[in-house]
Every structure is written in structure tokens, then in C-alpha cells.
């Protein structure tokens, strides 16, 4: 069986005897001890060895304990290591300052080796518990991401829907969502939404919206009726302050009729087979907030090969560059022409590469759907 590596403690004190005392008393209990008698050496060892805990003397010549802890907490590689500082019994200001700088506890000097041992033990236990909690939460969020992604239909599974997609959630609980509705052989629905917030509630709501779409986007209801019915339910179930912007594009490839329902969402881009790309601006209320919401509706006749881009605001907005989708959507129109020669399945990815570069990370979640009639 693999042997568990011993826990490591970095002891920092300019007093050699104190270091030796700590080393003797902790190493006999199975800890591995690194010693440093000055601040810069302590930081070098902390960075290289990543000890499980640091015992840090405050009063040292040159770089004192406060300087050391400040620098340790400023570094992403060392800021999670718990630091216990060693200070005189009467130095209340030192204790407060140490806590202020991120220390987890202090040991008063002169210290007793058994007290050092007891405090090291308790703080290692706390650290282990905290790390395990963080790892558990991260794992749950990863599962949530996987569940969210598994709910998203792929072009390969829906070849008749003739679409390509780019989906990127910046956080584990992403706020963007899309769905493809196979209403009949030649009638498809394309739904893109952006939830307010990126939290766990959002993830559960995406599952609810998916179920509502499946129930209400049927040949029996017109696109506007479907969205209004979904809105009525969402108003009842959405938590306070939660809402979503959404765009629903309904295409009947037999009648060549396309209908757009817009709920406070960025405009759809039409890239016709012949002609220049243009925005289809339809204003409407957001989903899930108002019982009597009015949604923007537009119908047009389309031709085979026409393309429609439905996307979330992460594509066209930039908080850093202070661009809102109202202005950003217009300025990006020429870019759609650039990707017109690329197959529709790959067009969303090409569009993202064109706008953000291959390696850059967008500022927000992004969904881009490219639908070809």
C-alpha cells in the first residue's frame, strides 16, 4: 500500500534554538520540518515546497513576519497555506495585525513544544477539512456542468435541424442555454436563452425550461402561443429577481416561413444566400418576470441556404470595452459575411475565432447557433 507522505511544516524564526526546538518536537511526531531563519528564505521554501502549514515568527531582523505573511498571501501559489504566527504574550497589536494579514492563529512566546504540536494538529485538521469541502464542492459543480452540457442537443444527433453551435460556459454553473425542438419532420424550433446570474439555481431552471419547451413547442401551438405559455409557468416558478432573455426561431422548411419571438434578447442576424447580412430587430419583454409580457414577433419568408445566427449577449457585448449588444450587434455585421463560405456546422466556431482569436477567453458565457434553411 502506498505510504501517505508526511505533513510538512515550515518553521520560520531568526532564533536557531527556537527552530531546533520546533523541529525536534514536531519531527518526532512524524511531521517533516523545513526551517528558515529569515523572511526571504522562508518565502523561497514556501514557494518550492508548498508546506501544509507555516509557523512564522513576527520579530525578525530585515523582512519581519508581517512582511512575509503579506507576500505569502499575495501569491496565488502560497496564499492558501495556513500561517500561525509566534508572538509575545503582551503584543495585542501584533496579534490583531497578524489576523488582519490572514494568519489563522498565533502561539505566544515563550511557547511550549506540546502547545505548538497541539496547535499544528488542530490547524492541519481544519485545513484538511476545508480542502476536502472545496474539493467536494468543485466536484459537484463539475457534475452540474456535465449535466448542463448533456442537456444540450448536438448537431450530430439532429441532422435534420441543420445547425451548428458554439457553447462556452465560463463558470461551472453557466447562465446560457439553448435547445432544438423537433416539432415535426420539416418544422424545427431553435431556442437560445440567457439566465440572469450564474448560480446553482440557474442550472436547475435550465432543466425546467427544457421540459417546458418540450411540452409547449408542438404543432398545435403557434410560436407566440408556445412562448406565452412558457412565460406563464416561469413567472410562477422563477425565484425573485430571476429572469431570462430568450429568442425562439421557428422554421417551417415546407412553407419557407420563419418566425422569430424575441424576449429582451439580442437581434437575430440573417445572412441571406444573396445579399448582405442584416439584423432582425424585434423588441420584447423578458421571460419569467411579467404575467402580461409582450414579446417581439417577426415573420419572414426564407429561401433554402439562408442562414440565421441566434446568440447570447456574450458574443456582442464587452463590459471591458463598454460595448452593449445594442451597438455591438450592428458593428459585427460585416464579420458574418466573412464566415459565409464555411459550412453551417462550423460557422459558429469560425465566428468566435474571428472575433476573439483562437486562444482568447470571452468575457461572458456564449452561445452561438447558426441555422441554415
Amino acid at each position, binding site marked *: 500500500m502506498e505510504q501517505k507522505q508526511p505533513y510538512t511544516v515550515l518553521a520560520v524564526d531568526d532564533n536557531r534554538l*527556537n527552530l531546533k526546538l520546533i523541529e525536534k518536537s514536531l519531527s518526532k511526531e512524524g511531521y517533516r520540518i523545513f526551517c528558515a531563519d529569515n523572511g526571504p528564505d522562508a518565502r523561497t521554501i514556501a514557494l518550492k515546497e508548498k508546506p501544509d502549514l507555516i509557523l512564522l515568527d513576527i520579530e525578525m531582523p530585515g523582512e519581519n513576519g508581517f512582511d512575509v505573511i503579506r507576500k505569502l498571501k499575495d501569491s496565488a501559489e502560497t496564499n492558501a497555506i495556513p500561517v500561525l504566527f509566534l508572538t509575545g504574550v503582551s503584543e495585542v497589536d501584533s496579534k490583531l495585525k497578524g489576523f488582519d494579514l490572514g494568519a489563522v492563529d498565533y502561539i505566544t512566546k515563550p511557547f511550549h513544544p506540546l502547545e505548538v504540536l497541539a496547535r499544528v494538529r488542530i490547524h492541519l485538521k481544519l485545513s484538511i477539512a476545508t480542502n476536502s469541502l472545496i474539493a467536494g464542492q468543485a466536484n459537484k459543480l463539475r457534475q452540474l456542468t456535465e449535466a448542463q452540457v448533456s442537456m444540450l442537443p448536438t448537431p450530430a444527433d439532429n441532422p435534420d435541424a441543420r445547425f451548428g453551435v458554439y457553447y462556452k460556459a465560463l463558470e461551472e454553473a453557466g447562465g446560457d442555454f439553448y435547445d432544438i425542438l423537433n416539432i415535426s419532420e420539416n418544422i424545427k424550433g431553435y431556442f437560445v436563452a440567457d439566465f440572469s446570474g450564474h448560480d446553482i439555481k440557474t442550472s436547475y431552471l435550465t432543466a425546467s425550461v427544457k421540459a417546458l419547451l418540450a411540452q409547449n413547442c408542438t404543432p398545435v401551438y403557434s410560436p407566440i402561443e408556445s412562448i406565452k405559455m412558457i412565460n406563464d409557468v416561469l413567472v410562477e416558478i422563477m425565484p425573485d429577481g430571476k429572469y431570462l432573455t430568450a429568442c425562439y426561431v421557428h422554421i417551417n422548411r415546407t412553407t419557407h416561413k420563419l418566425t422569430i419571438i424575441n424576449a429582451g434578447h439580442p437581434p437575430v442576424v440573417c445572412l441571406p444566400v444573396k445579399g448582405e447580412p442584416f439584423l432582425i430587430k424585434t423588441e420584447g419583454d423578458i421571460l419569467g418576470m411579467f404575467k402580461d409580457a409582450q414579446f417581439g414577433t417577426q415573420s419572414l419568408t426564407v429561401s433554402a441556404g439562408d442562414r440565421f445566427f441566434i446568440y447570447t449577449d456574450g458574443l456582442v457585448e464587452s463590459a471591458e470595452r463598454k460595448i452593449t449588444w445594442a451597438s455591438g450587434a450592428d458593428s459585427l455585421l460585416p464579420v458574418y459575411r466573412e464566415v459565409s463560405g464555411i459550412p453551417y456546422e462550423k460557422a459558429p466556431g469560425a465566428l468566435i475565432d474571428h472575433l476573439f482569436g483562437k486562444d482568447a477567453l470571452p468575457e461572458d458565457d456564449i452561445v452561438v447557433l447558426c441555422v441554415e434553411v
Partner: protein
Amino acid sequence: MDFNDLVSRLGIDEEDIKELVELFITTTLSDIEKIRKGISDNNPADAAAASHSIKGAAGNLGFDEIFSIAGDMEMQAKKGSLDNFNVYANDIEGRVHALHQSISE
């Protein structure tokens, strides 16, 4: 010096205690030299730092009298006074030599 008492108080074995006491003797004699230099240079800050070092080590090993003398010296030097420091330094030095004798026996 009662090693058994130190062993039971600090919770570490006799061999380690001897090693620590030897280290204490070496570092304290070195700190006493720093104090004497501080006196001759009229540099209370250096004398305070060396007294602080002796105080810390003595306190952790439970040498209460040396801890107390060094603590008083540190406080006094931090106020800028080195009065009677030679006497105090000689006192600590005598106690350290006594320690040395007891571990050599």
C-alpha cells in the same frame, strides 16, 4: 540542572534536550558578545535585539531566571538605556557557564 524535569516538561527525550541546551549555550554566549559590543558602541538597539534573542530561547527551554533578566534588559535597552548592562551580561554568562558544567558532568 535537572534534565529529567526538562524532559517531562518539554516532552522530548534527554538526548535532544542535551543538544538543545548545548545550542542554547552557544547562541547565548554569542548574544552576550553582541550585548557587550552594543555597550561599547553605545548601541541600545543591537543590545535589545540580542537580549530579545536570549529571552526567547531561555523562555522556550524554561530557564525562567535567564528569561526574566533578558526580558528586563530588552525593555530597558528599547528605552535607550544600557545602565548596568555589563552586570546583567555577566550574570547571564555565569548562569550559562553553570548550565554548561551541569551537562558536562
